[in-house]
């Protein structure tokens, strides 16, 4: 290695030292600016909420930071101002798929700023099927005004383009408002869609039409739908729920029986406690576990069933009964002693 190679090595070392120093300084400066910006954003949000006219005094950058921050009155005011000032460029950015973060930011400002095309642009972005952005886009859809957001989220659920579990999470707070649409979905051909419709209808079990629709799903060909129906029926009026839950507690598939057993306890249906006794001797562990948990949760009526099960011919049923009695923390001398 000659002198020139040595110089190369010097150059490499100096470059690396400078690069490290630059990166370190950048990191610290970024952090300090972030902290300052956050403090300022909180102040700006409070001022804007009090007097929206102060928005004209703020720079575009500060407005943008506010508009993209936590949803609040100040964020909405900042977004409206930005939409008014930069509508065309925001719409253009919202249409471009790349970079996804820039698209998401533009869409956020348009949605919060109440732009008329926001729903259509957001729908196009959701249809773009960018997995990484799905969750954020669905969250943003939930920020749309009621009707627009309902429609878009329902469309996404029906299309099945994105994981329905995540879409259903966003639809859940709107489910009572959407009961008619969900009742319709509870009878479509796609079993996965029926499952989610029934799951979302849980919150509307005071409506007779909903109870009817869910009741029909108790006889569904698909076990997942029957399991969802079991959970929902736990909240239905006793006259309807009792016979259907009885039926589901004897379902051919183990997880339907397990869901039905849990539903009995969740809804506090003490009148069905006795129906859980045969499940203590079920051939499937999950069903036995669900029956035990439910009996333990049902209080005195569950305990009475457990005591009765102590003389059951099946060993699993006796074991389960002991567990329920143990969990109750109450001594049932006669029965326990006899079995022991």
């Amino acid at each position, binding site marked *: *290695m*000659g*002198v020139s*190679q*040595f110089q190369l*090595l*010097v150059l*490499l*070392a100096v470059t*690396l*030292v400078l*690069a*490290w120093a630059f*990166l*370190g300084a*950048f*990191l*610290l400066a*970024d*952090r*300090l600016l*972030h*902290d300052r910006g956050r403090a300022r954003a909180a102040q700006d949000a409070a001022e804007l909420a009090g007097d929206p006219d102060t928005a004209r005094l703020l720079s575009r950058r500060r407005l943008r930071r506010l508009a993209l*921050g*936590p*949803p609040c009155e100040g964020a909405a005011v900042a977004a409206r101002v930005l939409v008014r000032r930069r509508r065309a460029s925001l719409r253009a950015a919202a249409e471009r798929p790349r*970079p*996804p*973060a820039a698209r*998401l*930011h533009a869409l*956020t400002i348009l949605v919060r700023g109440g732009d008329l095309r926001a729903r259509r642009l957001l729908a196009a972005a959701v249809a773009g099927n960018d*997995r*990484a*952005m*799905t*969750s*954020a886009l669905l*969250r*943003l859809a*939930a*920020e749309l005004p009621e009707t627009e957001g309902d429609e878009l989220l329902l469309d996404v659920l029906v299309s099945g383009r994105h*994981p329905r*579990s*995540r879409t*259903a*999470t*966003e639809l*859940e707070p709107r489910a009572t408002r959407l009961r008619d649409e969900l009742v319709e979905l509870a009878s479509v051909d796609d079993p996965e869609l029926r499952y989610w419709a029934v*799951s979302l209808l*849980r919150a509307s079990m005071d409506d007779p039409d909903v109870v009817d629709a869910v009741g029909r799903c108790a006889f569904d060909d698909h076990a997942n739908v029957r399991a969802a129906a079991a959970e929902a029926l736990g909240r239905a009026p006793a006259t309807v729920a009792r016979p259907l839950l009885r039926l589901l507690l004897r379902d051919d598939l183990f997880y339907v029986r397990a869901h039905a057993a849990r539903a009995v306890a969740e809804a506090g249906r003490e009148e069905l406690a006795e129906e859980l006794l045969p499940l203590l001797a079920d051939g499937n*562990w999950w069903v036995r*576990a669900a029956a035990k948990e439910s009996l333990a949760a049902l209080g005195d009526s569950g305990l009475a069933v457990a005591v009765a099960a102590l003389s059951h011919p099946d060993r*699993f049923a006796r*074991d*389960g009964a*002991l*567990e329920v009695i*143990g*969990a109750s923390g109450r001594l049932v001398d006669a029965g326990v002693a006899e079995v022991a």
Partner: protein
Amino acid sequence: MNGLLPPSSAVGWVVAVCFLYLLATYAAYGFLLAVSVAERKMRGGSRREGEDERVRSSSLTIPVTIVAPLYNEAPIAVDSVGSFLAVDYPQFDVVVVNDGSTDDTLERLREAFALEPVELFYRRTYDAKPVRTIYRSRTNPNLLVVDKVNGGKADSLNCGLNFARYRYVCGVDGDTILARRSLLDGMRLVLTDPGRVIGVTGHIAISGKPEASLNEDGAPCRLDPRPLLAFQHLDYLRSFFNNRLGWTRLNMMLCAVGAFQIWRRDVLEEVGGFSTDFTCEDIELTFRLHERFRREGRDYEILSLADTVGVTEGPDRIRSLISQRERWQRVIMETVVHYRRMAFNPRYGTVGLLGVPFFVLTEVVAPFFELASLLAVLAGFAFGSFDVATAGLMLVAIAFANGILTTAAVSLEDRTSRAYRPGDLARLVLLGPLDLLLYRPLIVYARAKGTWRFLRRDTGWHKFERNVRTA
């Protein structure tokens, strides 16, 4: 002036090969860093305010069972179990498995959580050492403590799985303090696509006293002032933010850490749970799942979070650190050698073509090159082939190259959490280049020791002693 590579000598050849190895390693790390930056940017950009609140309040959120094996964790057991019970998540339960501790771990738990023995008939899906007693907490109904005969960590996890009720399980270490948001952060990724996401892991911070490292919001915030622990913290940061995020992006996340690993339970059942045949269970399970899912052509993801999900205890003594790291080296070698058929095999996609070769390059063969480099440098000085200035410049270049990688990792973490104080950030940045001189030699030694023990087929755990707590 003497050159770096003495011409036509054996030492020269060794130096040349080692230099090429160094370049290949930095190229691999540089590439992964670039991918990690893209992944973090996407994650940061796709996160929306209010998403967590929605997940937290939804009745559709999937419940999780936390399984925590404990072996002689008396000083931290109560705090760690307390942190598991304090996680912010709508529905979860905690199964603590006392793996035949010989200290007073169980007694402390009994006292702190009002444990009482219960009769419980559980599902024996996995083989595990016999259970002695099962306890349920009077104060926390979602806490179950299982006292069993000692059988090792994998055995305890399998035992815990026998008691797991929910569809997802989260394995955690007994010396880990979970951040309050940890499950929410982990399951948020799962909920984006429960059909595909089969596993999630997350960054764990290091402290000599993890129980004192969370702020009032339950988020990790405090950097341990001791340099040995700060260096370990930096090591973890590089490992998670420079590597695992990149692996995630390339769908080859090959090591879900034992301190925080969320798995879909049906997937664990399918592969028979954690293996007791290896020194450590976490990396082997991740390799096994990749091997199976890729071989069967199934669509799946194992992801690493860009969030810090907890704090674990790092050894505050050099001897303990070496003991821990030599074990890690052994388990990496055991796993990579066991799954060697995946390396460079296109059938295994990025896992076979990039992931396993990356492990071979940076972990398996590293101790051999590190040893060869050291010997070559010593020989170079002895024969007068090196001069001090050249060697010094090389050292500076490598130290600051490491410093750049470290600072990038700190930056990626800070942009996600914004949890460090600016003073701590400056300290971490300054420690970066010193890693080569003050910390790396310990790791080199530990890796050489681990390799030696692997070659001797040692599979002992060699657990390090807990750090001494002062009031």
